[in-house]
């Protein structure tokens, strides 16, 4: 049996699953202390079902906690950045184009050193150990313990990043070092940005994950812990401690994977409606459709693998004014049960409208009985229109399509949408994110560049496949179950066509199985 938890910004959801059956579910308001909320959800599940904790084979957790730490600029540690690439790359130093407040908070100094590779594997310049040693001394003297290392074309050859890390680790044994080739894709600045963000979160991630493991052990759950990644796959806890940046998009991906599982749809538009906002994205062959463009996290441009998501401001806690009609963008968020009319508060919110319209029953219906039915109806139609507009923006062609509605906010609208072939609000819709976490498999990804003057195409592809599979294994997949699920081979533009960029994704089962 697996326990899946998703701790979002507003709500924490949990499910207990045995194979494909959902045995129990739970919904809570997300607590400031992330571990408290998750532990509470797990204990409620154990109490509700009376399951022996020893029967739990895995706990899988998705969370927006780390991306929120970046958005809200809290609990971040200063990072020293070491970039290998001189004499190239000086035109655009590390931290270029960062929001000033975030840069001020985590800029523990940037160092540019010799090193780095050309696309064909030659060195731009040799790594100079004394230069790195000198940088290590200065980082140590400043008392900085989080280090991000980037090297030009480390996706062609990671050796220099590794060698520099070795020298710095020797000097600063307690340093936590993020290497850009382990998380990012092609594009030095964006990959370096992702490495810096990862490094500034490592201390927080280690604390949160280790506290959570201890809390689970206190509940006598000794099963391994996994965290959800950006594409909805999982990674083992010890891997997640080192790569917290890979959890950033897990909320929308878990919702989509959960929606695919609950509805049985493999090609659909998924709308995940929460307390403040709603996310809309597309499922292609049962996986969240990926964005092909660079994304901004906390105002910083990164090139992580991220789902293509469109967010609009509608959720159960959206503030509503009836005269003139206005819905959102402000929301009462986590204070829904204090501030909305049906829960005894004094703010008119979207959930009050849905209760007044009679499409859902919650709280004290009498509290909204005085609202003008005509105005309630207009507000309902406006919410419906907001969702239809978002579906229109997202749809990939004009053919009618299947829409899956999930998330606790999906009770706000009637399951009939203009332009949709079918609208499915599956059972357990409210806890779809937790289901997505629970059913996840372990994933790995690789992005490499090969020059075919030095290696045959087949050997290059084979090496990239092995690298993607090794990453899935490192993230906790059972090696005998790992398969390649996606391969993209594109030539680098404006270079004679023998330089290939190879992107491969692999997926395997959890080490313990289900």
């Amino acid at each position: 049996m697996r326990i899946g938890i998703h701790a979002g910004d507003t709500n924490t959801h949990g499910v207990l699953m045995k194979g494909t059956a959902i045995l129990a579910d739970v919904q809570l308001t997300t607590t400031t202390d992330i571990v408290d909320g998750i532990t509470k959800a797990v204990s409620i599940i154990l109490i509700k079902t009376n399951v022996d904790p020893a029967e739990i084979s895995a706990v899988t957790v998705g969370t927006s906690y780390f991306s929120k730490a970046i958005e809200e600029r809290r609990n971040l540690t200063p990072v020293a950045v070491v970039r290998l690439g001189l004499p190239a790359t000086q035109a655009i130093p590390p931290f270029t184009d960062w929001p000033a407040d975030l840069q001020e908070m985590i800029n523990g100094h940037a160092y540019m050193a010799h090193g780095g590779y050309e696309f064909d594997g030659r060195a731009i310049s040799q790594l100079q150990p004394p230069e790195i040693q000198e940088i290590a001394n200065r980082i140590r003297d400043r008392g900085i313990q989080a280090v991000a290392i980037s090297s030009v074309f480390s996706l062609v050859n990671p050796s220099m990043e590794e060698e520099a890390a070795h020298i710095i680790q020797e000097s600063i044994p307690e340093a936590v070092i993020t290497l850009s080739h382990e998380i990012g894709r092609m594009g030095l600045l964006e990959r370096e940005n992702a490495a810096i963000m990862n490094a500034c979160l490592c201390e927080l991630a280690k604390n949160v994950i280790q506290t959570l493991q201890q809390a689970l052990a206190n509940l006598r759950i000794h099963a391994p812990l996994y965290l959800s990644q950006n594409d909805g796959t999982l990674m083992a806890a010890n891997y997640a401690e080192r790569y917290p940046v890979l959890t950033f998009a897990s909320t929308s991906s878990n919702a989509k994977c959960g929606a695919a599982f609950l509805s049985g749809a493999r090609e659909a538009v998924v709308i995940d409606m929460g307390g403040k906002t709603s996310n809309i994205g597309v499922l292609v062959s049962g996986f969240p459709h990926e964005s092909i463009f660079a994304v901004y996290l906390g105002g910083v441009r990164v090139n992580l693998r991220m789902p293509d998501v469109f967010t609009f401001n509608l959720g159960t806690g959206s503030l509503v004014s009836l005269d003139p009609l206005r819905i959102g963008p402000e929301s009462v968020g986590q204070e829904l049960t204090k501030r909305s009319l049906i829960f005894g508060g004094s703010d008119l919110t979207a959930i009050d409208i849905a209760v007044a319209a009679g499409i859902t029953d919650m709280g004290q219906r009498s509290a909204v009985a005085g609202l003008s039915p005509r105005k309630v109806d207009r507000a309902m139609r406006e919410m419906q229109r907001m969702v239809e507009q978002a579906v229109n923006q997202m749809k990939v062609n004009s053919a009618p399509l299947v829409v899956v509605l999930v998330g606790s906010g999906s009770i706000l609208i009637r399951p009939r949408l203009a332009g949709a072939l079918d609208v499915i609000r599956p059972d357990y819709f409210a806890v779809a994110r937790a289901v997505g976490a629970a059913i996840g498999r372990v994933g790995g990804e690789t992005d490499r560049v090969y020059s075919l003057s030095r290696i045959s195409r087949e050997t290059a592809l084979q090496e990239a496949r092995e690298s993607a599979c090794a990453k899935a294994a490192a993230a906790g997949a059972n090696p005998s179950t790992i398969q390649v699920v996606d391969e993209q081979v594109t030539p680098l533009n404006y270079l004679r066509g023998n330089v290939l960029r190879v992107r491969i994704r692999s997926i395997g089962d959890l080490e313990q199985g289900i």
Partner: protein
Amino acid sequence: MIELDKRQVHDLALGAKIMGGGGGGDPYLVELMAQEAIRTSGPVHVWAVEEVPDDALVVAVGMMGGTTVLAERLPSNREIVRVISTLERYLDHPITALISIEMAGVNGVIPVISAARLALPLIDGDLMGRAFPGIHMTLAALAGLRATPMVIVDARGSQVILDTADNLTTEILARSIVMDMGGAAQFALYPMQGKQLCHIALSGSMSQIIHIGRSLHEAQDNSQDPILAIQRATQGRELFRGKVTDVQRHWQIGHDYVFGDASVEGEGVYMGQEMTLKFQNEYLLAVVGRHLVTSVPDNIVVLEARTANPIPPEFLISGVDLVAFGLPCAPRWRTPEGLSIVGPRTFGYDVDYRSITVSREIRMDS
């Protein structure tokens, strides 16, 4: 005389990015460099083509090679200055003004960096009117000018001066050198006098790109339809809308670049139709059904339907929803001489040029 300030460079970069939807790379990084150059060296003076003195010595500057390489092995800043100083030494004459070789993608913006750093005026024009993959594919070459002497400088500081017999040879040699320089390098080429330039350059193309960028910025600020804003600003003709269902890339003996084919399933008024986009580094042919609707040298620009983000060929994948626009090329490209340099056959496609301005459609016999 006008000046390029921070805001205009931002508009220019967005306009060049949109035109980069036909090829030429994403100017994000070079815009950062241009903004930094303007911040430290002040705004760039712009000369209209007709303002250029007859005796001015003008050269085109830009980068050559892979834009993916440029985004990975970032420049050092020195190469952008060195291409000019080395060429000045070789010519034994100071350079008076700079011009863009192609007003699309990264090369729409790089000349701003050079002009700011060297305090040289920049000319409101370019030598291609769109992105092309070869340095011999210019209106200057069409007018009989030699691309050389040409200087190429890489990020490590190596520099090469080419002085060649003809422009195609320049392209072949320069491409090989740039590959061995790590796949991306800065160049200065086509030195010419002001009195030659006024007959050669595509006048006003930089202003036009700034206008396109500004129109899109304004549409975004006012939550207006970005695609419509781009169409209006570019005067482009919508060729097709739909979803990419298949992308194939194949290597062909005798050709440097990979040949790509994308199938696009129509939506809206194009429902039931299919478009095939033939591409290499740029989109080169658009075939709807069996009819060739547009071909190189007219420009095919591809945008994502929802966000209006340009999708250059290297990022094209299945599942993407796109809008394709056709933009007319400079009229000089439509002459037999022009087509012998940039027509479909020079890219390996055995079809006649198909202008978007002609409404009659030619049947393709597959």
